[in-house]
């Protein structure tokens, strides 16, 4: 199956399961298909536990026990298509990871090696992937850091000597070091104060504009999506429920879940009390029959309890998976 030119990653029918015991497993990702495009910022939205973090780990190709994955994930590398799930981890380590795709993990504050200086974090990547010597790598790292707008002597510091915000920026800088085509950011602004959030997001956007990569931001914070993304994929209980360009989606969300997510955001001038969504996400070991959102849906119909809905496609690349919109 070939992939169009501006699509950098095409995932079809991806499943991700955590095997807890021989009899129980958690279907964290359930038949998700998604496309990442060149020079586009896409957001994946949804509550904690909806499977978005697991999804991007699988798209990245990092499958570690007890996670298992299946499906087709095609990476478009200069015309060649690489199936992320079928190549070995060694291959990914040598050729794909950090060079074509990179990752900004959750909890960025604690992902740096406390026993290594910042400079070493950069130089070890440069030495490995560009096969250069220590001195040259260090010099490159210095130039790079300065280009990123940070001071050179940060390289000599240990992670614990830097502030949380600084460490966050380092992690972003590390992700962009080898100029990858695709960048995954997993909750980059959670656990960070609002002021720093803005700085960080601005940093991410500026760099994306400069390097023209495909940036995927995973977060439950709809405010971030509104501010930064061009297209949003909304997930619930491991499945995609809606996908649309950002502005139109915010103006007129179709899926009841998306409506609830967006209406929980405060708006300037709107003084009505915010309505939260009652209930809790379903137990993924034993999901409810039919549409997995029906227990919490204010518009649930009889058919919702019995049958799983399929996608309705609109123009403008809008997809919704809800019985409300399915013409019978």
């Amino acid at each position, binding site marked *: 199956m070939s992939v169009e030119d501006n699509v950098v990653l095409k995932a079809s029918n991806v499943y991700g399961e955590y095997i807890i015991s021989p009899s129980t497993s958690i279907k964290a990702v359930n038949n998700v298909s998604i496309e990442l495009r060149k020079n586009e910022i896409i957001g994946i939205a949804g509550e904690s536990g909806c499977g978005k973090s697991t999804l991007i780990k699988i798209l990245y190709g*990092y499958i570690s026990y007890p996670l298992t994955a299946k499906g087709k994930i095609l990476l478009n590398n200069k015309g060649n298509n690489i199936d992320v799930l079928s190549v070995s981890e060694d291959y*990914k380590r040598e050729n794909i990871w950090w060079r074509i795709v990179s990752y900004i*993990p959750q909890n960025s504050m604690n992902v740096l*090696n406390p*026993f290594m200086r910042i400079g070493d974090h950069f130089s*070890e990547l440069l030495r490995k992937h560009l096969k250069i010597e220590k001195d040259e790598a260090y010099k490159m790292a210095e130039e790079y850091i300065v280009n990123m707008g940070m001071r050179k002597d940060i390289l000599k510091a*240990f992670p614990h000597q830097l502030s949380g915000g600084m460490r966050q920026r380092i992690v972003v800088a590390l992700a962009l070091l080898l100029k990858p085509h695709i960048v995954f950011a997993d909750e980059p602004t959670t656990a960070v104060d609002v002021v720093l959030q803005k700085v960080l997001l601005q940093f991410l956007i500026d760099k994306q504009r400069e390097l023209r990569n495909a940036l995927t931001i995973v977060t439950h914070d709809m405010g971030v999506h509104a501010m930064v993304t061009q297209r949003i994929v909304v997930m619930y209980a491991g499945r995609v429920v809606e996908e649309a360009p950002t502005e139109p989606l915010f103006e007129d969300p179709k899926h009841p879940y998306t409506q609830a997510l967006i209406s929980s955001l405060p708006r300037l001038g709107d003084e009505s009390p915010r309505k939260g969504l009652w209930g809790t996400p379903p137990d993924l070991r034993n999901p409810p029959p039919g549409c997995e959102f029906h227990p919490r849906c204010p518009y649930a119909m009889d058919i919702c309890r019995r049958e799983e809905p399929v996608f309705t496609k609109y123009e403008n690349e809008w997809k919704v998976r809800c019985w409300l919109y399915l013409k019978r």
Partner: protein
Amino acid sequence: MHPFVKHLVNRTMVMVITLFIAFNISYLLIRAIPTSAVDAMLGAIAQLGQRLDPEEYMRMRQVLLELFGLSGSPLDQYLTYLKRFFTLDFGFSFIVFPRPAREIVLRYLPWSVGLLLFTTVISWTLGNIIGVIVSFVKNRYISGALENIAIVLYPIPYYVFSLALIYIFAYLIPIFSLSPATMPAISIASLWDLINVVFHILKTASAPALSIIVISALGWWFISSRTLSLATMTEDYVIYARLRGIDIGRIRGRYVLRSIMVPQVTALALALGAVFSGALVTEYIFAYPGLGSLLYQAIIIGDYPIALTILSLSMIGVTLATWFLDTVVYYLIDPRIRFAK
């Protein structure tokens, strides 16, 4: 205040208190020996075939009386003993009268220190490295088997293992010799002599060293290293390193091994007492010319000066070494302490 200063003060206080308690227990021993025993001791010296002329006899009697003594007020006695304890001056040895006990002990000391340093460094390093490597092994059978071996080795004291080794390799399959080793007169007149001496040292030390290293490395350090490694492998910064595509070898070394070194240094500091104690008995069993064998001789004969010298030296030495590991080395090895904000 720099967090390390607090730690340093704490560890120094521990050292002081330890030495204080150890010293007082030692003082109790002295108090427990009745002065009538002094004459018995002098008799023992005579029995060992030492010829005492009357002057030396009186001098020795004086020293012993003062050592176990009732000369001077209680406070005087306490302070004098304090001085003896820290200068390791407990008078003349019985075995090799009239040489001072300290001189004899210092002659045997290098052998013990050598053995201890060698075995401790090797087993700590080896155990840690093997533990990390095995924690990366995916094959459950191999890692499980090694873990089982380690669990069997762990609770066995060095010297019991030594006895087993002696039985197998000295009796059944003669590799080591059963007869006691003689301490060579170390006179290095030529390169050949040096080689000979080194070879002899290695040969003598191989058996006790082997006992200690096998139990320490494959028992103690392997188990703790593997447990720590498995825990470290799930840490965020290790997972992030894998995501960045860093080579597994580098992750093993620069991430996991480097990270477990800090708690393992602390663990080593705490284990030093046990390592030393075990080595002491092992030395005696293999008739290795170190403090262990000397101590046995001293105890059997009742040579209190030598026994006290060795015991005080042990207490001070181990306590100091523990302090050193817990402060100096710990400081150097943990950048979070050394370069604190």
